[in-house]
């Protein structure tokens, strides 16, 4: 487990160093994820230890958002002033985005499946 965590941190560190030194708009952990993905593709898959640790961490992904979410208490004032536009735009935009993305993807995958399989 310690080996796997070290590996994840090393990839994050490389990502952070690249993001800052090249002034990229992309955060370090996302670059780290892309690099690890490439490394897995070159290696032909993750070692079992890394897979188990990743699974354990991702199973509790919800936990990791709780500290930032609790920060809502810093913004009670602005949110009570603008609660109506905020809640309507968040709800509507979330529903629209879910629907548009899923429908576009379904339309395109059906088309490409039909093109590859003329029967």
């Amino acid at each position, binding site marked *: 487990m310690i080996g796997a965590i070290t590996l994840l941190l090393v990839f994050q560190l490389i990502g952070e160093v690249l993001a800052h030194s090249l002034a990229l708009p992309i955060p370090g952990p996302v670059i780290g994820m892309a690099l690890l993905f490439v490394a897995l*593709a070159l290696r032909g898959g993750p070692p079992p230890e890394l897979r188990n640790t990743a699974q354990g*961490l991702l199973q509790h992904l919800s936990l*990791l958002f*709780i500290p930032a979410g609790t920060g809502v208490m810093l913004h009670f004032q602005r949110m009570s002033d603008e609660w109506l536009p905020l809640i309507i735009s968040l709800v509507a935009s979330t529903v629209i985005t879910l629907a548009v*993305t*899923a429908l576009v993807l379904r339309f395109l995958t059906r088309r490409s499946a039909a093109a590859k399989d003329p029967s």
Partner: protein
Amino acid sequence: MTPRISEIWVYLAASPLLGLTLTLLAYQGAVHVHKRCDGHPLANPVLLAVVTLVGLLWLTDTPYRTYFDGAQFVHFLLGPATVALAIPLYAQLGRLQRMALPLLVALVIGSLTAALSAVTIGSLMGASKATLLSLAPKSVTTPIAMGIAERLGGLPSLTAVLVIITGVLGAILARYVYRALHIEDDAQRGFAMGIAAHGIGTARAFQESEQMGAFAALAMGLNGLMTALLLPVVMPWLIA
């Protein structure tokens, strides 16, 4: 007796132990309730835990800073967890290659829809400029969204909150949207979830299936990149 308790409280309030332990307890309580409700999306673990913690901090008059001194150890794990998303993603390599073009098109359209719909509706409803700029990256995972908000001139800490609310809304609403539109494929369901509701949607998607989670993780990562590239170009044009 009373002075002893207040002494202990002074000690605990100054150490990171309490914030950290409370976060873990609130999470496990929330997961327990979530299970008791048969995993109903309204009993979202993030929502339940945040409501519990805000209530506790408010009742004990504890500043968020003090709480975060302990909770930051959990917050820190967002970084390695983001890197770890490469592993479920790799498991879907074959499907990703077959679907590369449809995924790319859905990404660009979904990414623009998320930001533009929120800003347009918010501005029609009369939200202030700082709020609109903080709202724009709300479908992107927290660390990226805060960076984007800062570049746009919004309020990063407000963005963090709007991001979390969006994630919880996506995790709750997706089931109904998919049912209404008859979206049944886990790849499509997961990808839309990751675009609209980032990591919290991804966490929800992993509860449904490994495949749905992997596509949500992919969409979340790509949407972070895409939004970071598009918004600084599109926003000045949208908000005069």
